[in-house]
């Protein structure tokens, strides 16, 4: 791997991509997730009503007709709210993934590479992982106050230790590899070794983890909103919409089911995507989750 230069590497990437595109699960996942992502990206163009505009005369309209997904208890368009909710889910999921990619890698690499840091970092890591995830997220959002940004921070705090652990275990294995030892013997600096020899090879399990993480993040955000500690209402997150629909599930079940199904499709798409990535990038992980 170390002698892999640009061109073979690119060729290898292309081969991986081809294998991914032949993978049935990956493609169906990409399809489901793609729909949601496109809808989310196009939110301003495919909705004509402000998701927060009240219209008390039009409340509780069933789906169909002028109101594709119907309206909620304030006469707000559920289509608008669900579509904008998709955008928020995507933003939150992507942000959590990005924060995890950065800090999970930093912490995991530091712990795995520098033995002296390992114990200390992993103790804190273990402690954070020991909390039931949702409770920790609830406590953190309660501290920070409910807002979209704080939900992102809370979920990152919950999940970074898990990502860090995965990075750490790959780094520990790679650190002992002969070519890394050779680089150490040749007097390469820590940073160089990490950057050129270790991290590129730790990427596969990490990418797989991040794709599942996206799913967890979307799911957890909805759960937090549903419990009333997520993004501030009336922000149209799926969890908020469902939470507000809770009192009307007898008479207006669509308020709950539509965002619920959207949520399910997104999570399923991501899970399928993750399965495909795992099969292709990191067959060793097959047995885990």
């Amino acid at each position, binding site marked *: 791997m170390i002698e892999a230069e640009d061109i073979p590497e690119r060729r290898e990437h292309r081969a991986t991509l081809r294998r991914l595109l032949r993978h049935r699960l990956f493609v169906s996942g990409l399809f489901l997730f793609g729909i949601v992502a496109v809808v989310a990206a196009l939110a301003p163009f495919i909705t004509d009503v402000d998701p927060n505009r009240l219209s*008390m005369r039009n409340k509780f309209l069933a789906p169909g007709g002028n109101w594709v997904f119907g309206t909620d208890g304030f006469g707000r368009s559920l289509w608008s709210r669900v579509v904008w909710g998709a955008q928020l889910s995507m933003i939150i999921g992507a942000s959590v993934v990005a924060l995890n990619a950065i800090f999970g890698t930093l912490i995991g690499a530091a712990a795995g590479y520098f033995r002296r840091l390992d114990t200390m970092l992993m103790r804190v890591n273990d402690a954070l992982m020991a909390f039931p995830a949702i409770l920790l997220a609830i406590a953190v959002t*309660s501290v920070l*106050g409910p807002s979209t940004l704080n939900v992102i921070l809370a979920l990152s705090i919950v999940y970074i230790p898990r990502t860090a652990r995965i990075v750490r275990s790959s780094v520990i294995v790679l650190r002992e590899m002969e070519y890394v030892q050779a680089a150490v013997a040749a007097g390469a600096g820590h940073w160089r070794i990490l950057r050129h020899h270790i991290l590129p090879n730790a990427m596969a399990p990490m990418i797989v983890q991040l794709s599942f993480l996206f799913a967890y993040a979307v799911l957890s955000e909805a759960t937090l909103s549903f419990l009333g500690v997520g993004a*501030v209402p009336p922000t149209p997150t799926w969890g908020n919409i469902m939470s507000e629909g809770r*009192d009307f599930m*007898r*008479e207006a079940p669509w308020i709950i089911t539509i965002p619920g199904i959207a949520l399910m499709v997104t999570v399923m798409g991501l899970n399928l995507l993750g399965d495909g990535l795992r099969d292709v990038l990191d067959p060793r992980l097959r047995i885990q989750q």
Partner: protein
Amino acid sequence: MKRLLIASCLASAVIAGPLHAERFTCPARGGDIVFGQEANVNSLDQMTSNTISTRNIAMNIFETLMTRDENNNPILELAESMTAAPDGMTYTFRLRSGVTFHNGKPLTSADVAASFNRYNRIGLQRSTLDNVAGWDTPDPMTFVIRMKQAQPTFIEALSSFSVPIVIIPAELENDERQQLRTIGTGPFRLLEFTPGSHARLGRYDGYSPNPAFEQRTGFGGYRVACVDTVTFRIVTEASARVAGLETGALQAVEDVPTRSLEGLRRNSAITVLPLQNWWIQIALPNTAIPPTNNLAFRRAVQAALGVEDIMDAATDGNFRLNIGFQFPNQATYTDAGRETYNINDPQRARALLREANYRNEPIIILTNRDYPPMYNAALVMEQQLKAVGINASLRVVDWPTSVQMSQRLNNDEWHFFHSGWGTQPALGALATMQFLVSPNAAYRPRDDRDDPEVLAAWNAMNNLPDQAARNAAFATMQRLILERAYAYPFGSLTKVQAVRSNLQGFTPFRIPRFSNVWLQR
């Protein structure tokens, strides 16, 4: 002070009406009732808790010396008479004979004294006893309260059901806060209590009803337990409560969503019982900071508000327009300040905004999601303020945070705070208007310096010896508050309860009362 006793009898007679001239007897006895309660209950210690959910259950178990009737007038409960000294320095209670606790022990003045001792030690509203010098038990059936100074409103405070001084057996005097063993004198006794889940009450066969009345009234009156058991089951999901009622798993429920009413009304097996005047939906300005410290701005907001839409959203349609801080069925009700109510005149609002020199400063409406009516009211208010050109936005936190923020001195994080006043307006003008004087003044005057005229009216309400004069002082205070826009009471919220139709005698009240309620076969 015999007058008071007579007055309460009269009041109950008026409520009971000619049809019920005789004493209540159970048309049918036996059966079990399950009540679907919305809010969780953590403790049944009525002395240290003032949550509605505790009261719901505990006030079927405990009784007090004095309580309130159907119209919130003070009445006697465990006492057969009360005599106030002409100088207002002593109150002498003569206890009813034949009253026993659920453990079989007869009630004596020692128990009352022990109850007052415990309340004075840890009772949540022990400031009620601030003007009390002490209490004596000259004989087992007599209990005397000695005052430090006369307090014309003492009986009103003593009979308050906010955190009532419930009478417990003397041996429970030293029970810790929230650890009170649940033994009272009421028509029901506690069989089983699982916090967070349910409480099961059983009929207390040794109960002796209050012979001074013919019928149940308010929290007291002539009470008889007809059913064998009553289970208060916590069902937080509104839809589940309704479904439970429909399937018959629940015989009675509180807080029925308006949306479900239509179906329930069509169902002949179910009787829908609206409980009017549950609370006053209200928003309060923060007068410590600009621009809400500016009267013109506050009046601009007043002019912008259309309370029908706000109440409609807050209550989902179950409301009554109501001016001020009392309800029309109360003696102290007044519509003073009515011209400030429901103006809904955007033009006037804009003019007032210009007068206030409003420069699009951001206006923060503080609300919470724990109580949907407050959240919903805030949502509509935000929209109405935006419509007249006010740069309003919501700040949604949870209830404890919003209370803390609203009470912090000179806090600049919010301009309007949404709340609901329930228990206090029901208790009367005095209990309500305490919210509008420092240190509690909900309009948060800078450095807690009250508006002197408001404060003067408050003092008059408290200290004038004559009830009519006190009522007049209240009218003045209400008018001042409304005219100066220190509060925006939107209207009265109706809480809907519903029962299976074979459950008879259930009249909605501030607690679900299960005495004089029977199951028809």
